[in-house]
């Protein structure tokens, strides 16, 4: 196998998949660090985002990329709503209770998707897109858009977190919640912002998975493990870590086909997760361990 084949068949799909994981992992890492629990409904929230975009595409006949902002806003609103209705009153209880509630939410979101959109696989647009050839490396347009969107979204988020007042408040809550509350940070606003960001990124993640593969009700649930592996690999609470982790997990999954049977591709994320917990639970970029 020559280098081009390796890049075309394994590295490029790996980077695309990794970008999709990264978008979800950023949300997971923020929720883990700021709200301090593992949000198990994250994958299914991504599914919902992907299907909201599908509704916009089929309902209004717009192109998928126009539907993306609609999905992002819609899913962010749903995420805030779920927090208000189901998670908010559990805040004083042990955090693990919220983890349990989120498992139930995952089931509920998936059930809604299955009732509204059915259980068959769907796509945003029909037909086969041929990849363009860039000096021997074959890339499809949508693959470039996926990577670009991830870089832009995470870049904007990083700017927001480091430069703006509310971004700094979020980081303060993540570093030391008691001190942050004492210094007058409005916890409710920080929580809401976290959900807006996590929900929006989640929808983007689901959307790009949908546009690069296909839409089905279980698509998000199967992303949950890689997304958590990415968040922990990068270091909980570290946005750039989540991106790095996502890319590593994505590429590792694609490359794993070379050494282990392809049926076990999904096991790669799990292996990475356990390995990190075993040797370096703080992750590559020294995040938190809850």
């Amino acid at each position, binding site marked *: 196998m020559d280098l081009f084949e390796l890049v075309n068949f394994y590295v490029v799909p790996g980077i695309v998949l990794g970008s999709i994981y990264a978008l979800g992992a950023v949300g997971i890492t923020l929720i883990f660090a700021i709200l301090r629990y*593992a949000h198990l409904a994250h994958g299914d929230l991504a599914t919902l985002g992907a299907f909201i975009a599908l509704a916009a595409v089929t309902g209004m006949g717009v192109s998928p990329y126009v539907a993306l902002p609609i999905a992002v806003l819609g899913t962010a609103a749903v995420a805030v709503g779920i927090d208000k209705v189901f998670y908010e*009153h559990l805040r*004083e209880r042990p*955090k693990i209770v919220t983890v349990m*509630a989120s498992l139930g939410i995952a089931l509920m979101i998936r059930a809604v998707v299955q009732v509204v959109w059915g259980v068959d696989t769907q796509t945003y647009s029909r037909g086969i897109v041929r990849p363009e050839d860039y000096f021997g490396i074959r890339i499809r347009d949508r693959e470039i858009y996926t990577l670009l969107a991830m870089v832009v979204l995470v870049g904007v988020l990083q700017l927001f977190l480091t430069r703006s007042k509310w971004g700094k408040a979020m980081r303060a809550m993540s570093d030391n919640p008691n001190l942050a509350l004492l210094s007058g940070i409005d916890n409710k606003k920080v929580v809401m912002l976290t959900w807006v960001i996590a929900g929006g990124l989640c929808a983007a993640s689901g959307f790009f998975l949908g546009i690069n593969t296909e839409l089905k009700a279980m698509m998000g649930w199967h992303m949950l*493990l890689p997304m958590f592996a990415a968040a922990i690999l990068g270091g909980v609470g570290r946005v750039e870590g989540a991106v790095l982790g996502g890319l590593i997990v994505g590429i590792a999954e694609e490359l794993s086909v070379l050494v282990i049977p392809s049926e076990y591709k999904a096991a790669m994320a*799990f292996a990475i997760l356990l390995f990190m*917990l075993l040797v370096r639970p703080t992750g590559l970029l020294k995040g938190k*361990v*809850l």
Partner: protein
Amino acid sequence: MEFVGLVNYALFMAIFICIYALLALGLNIQWGFAGLFNAGIAGFFAVGAYTSAIISTAPADGRIGGFDLHFVIGWIGAMLAAGLVAWPIGKICLRFRSDYLAIATIGIAEIIRLVIKSEPVLTNGARGISNIPRPAGDLGYMESQIAYLIIVLAVLIVAYVVVERQFNAPWGRMMRAIRDDEDAARAMGKNVEFRRLEAFIFGAALMGLGGAMFAHFNRSITPEAIDPMVATFLIWIMLILGGSGNNRGAILGAAVVWIIWSVSEIATDRLPHEYAVQAKYLRLFLIGLMLQLVLRFRPEGLLPEPLRGDQRSTKSGADRH
């Protein structure tokens, strides 16, 4: 005829309630006693089911076994295998907060599902393993069901007595101490990680046994026999609704939730075909909503954890970090 059908259905339900009660008891050891979040119950269930199937079926071509051994050996094997799967996961994850265990158990359930689907040598692939002997299965239909119910009930009673004794024994008090205040328990010289590992493995072993009893009752086990997410979630809602930390609550919850679940299935099956599929998912939505409502309005469940005197007042303040 109608009456016989009803009795048969009641027996069928009772056997399932016993099996689910055993699973809920296993989860109660993990969650109720030790505060460990296992989101991969279906994985341990499947390990138990397949292990017992391999041990007790007649030799077959193209897969390992069967070894044609007595079903009791199969059930013991199922418990050992499920415990053995739980061991490394617990070993790695129990040093951290239970969130990590939740993620890892989702992972292990997924891996077990992959192995079952893609290792025909072990599990006979999609066709699954059939002709699993049912204890007292050569009697007539109803007699055989009654006999199996007695066996399952006996196992459940033994498990209940053992777990209940442990709850009141020093071990149970220590587990609850670790659950409610890890640091204090550690300061008193308890080996927190090891004790949690014990609880995790014991619970997993009971789940494996539940899986084995399911496989022997159905006389077969296939990858599609249970929906992993639904099964895991049903057992969670059984324990939470019944009352986590209370063994009788776990059994009561299993009965209540299983009856609601089955009756709603009968109701949705009567719907015209075009709504039947949607109604199936609506049920899932409602069971998820039920968990949210219980967590919100009755977090202690129908039968709360028995606490003595002034401990009750401090419980709500106990926040595990």
